[in-house]
């Protein structure tokens, strides 16, 4: 499965557009880690636990999206966008969406599929 956040797919020609697919997760923080992060707030600096947590959540959301795309028989997902929102205090939703497409490798000049308004 190829993933791209562009309107086309590098080195490929898109043959069929299937559907918009999405994946999401809602995550909360670990109480202990939250406490440590609170301490970190005093001196500033990177909140490593949060970074890891959000990265993990993002991978999971991507995985769910890819599973949906595979169910449609897609070769790739293009136009991927991420969004993060706070649903309640202490929990955030990671949402990722894109368009599932069928694509074939193109040996023509690069960027051939780059016609924005087909």
């Amino acid at each position: 499965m190829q993933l791209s956040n562009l309107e086309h797919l590098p080195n490929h020609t898109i043959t069929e557009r299937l559907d918009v697919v999405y994946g999401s997760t809602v995550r909360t923080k670990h109480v202990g880690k939250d406490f440590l992060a609170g301490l970190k707030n005093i001196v500033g600096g990177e909140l490593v636990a949060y970074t890891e947590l959000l990265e993990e959540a993002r991978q999971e959301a991507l995985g769910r999206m890819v599973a949906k795309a595979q169910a449609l028989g897609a070769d790739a997902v293009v136009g991927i966008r991420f969004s993060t929102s706070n649903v309640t205090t202490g929990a955030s939703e990671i949402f990722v969406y894109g368009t599932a497409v069928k694509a074939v490798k193109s040996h023509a000049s690069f960027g051939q599929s780059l016609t924005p308004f087909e």
Partner: protein
Amino acid sequence: MDIVDLILRNLQIVIAVLLFVVGWYFGTMNERRHLARLADEERLFAHISISNERFYVPAIQSDGALVLGSVSIAQDGFKLIFAGFLSLFGKNLTVYESLLERARREAVLRMKRQANELGCIHIYGVRIETSTVDGGGVEVLVYGTAV
């Protein structure tokens, strides 16, 4: 009345002042160290060009790969207090400007590092997103397609 008694009686004020000083000292030190490291690594990955133009296509024939870089970063206590003070006058919150600036540079670097591991030299279609995390911190997400 001895000094210990005085400190105990004004414990809250003492703690506040202590946090202020600790935040100021470590925050400034952290920031300086971070800026130095950012400059170093930016030089290391200077060969990777990035662009967010929608219709720019690098002259290279390879499959694209989605690359991500993200960072959560907290503001230090001293600067939070300072920001509260500044916001009384409605000026630029310079302390937040530098925090966001650092976070973005860090996130871009992480994305570049990921692209470097894949052996890519261009990243295009770059998007930068910012969101808040609880307690005065920010999260920056940068993503793009590497070729």
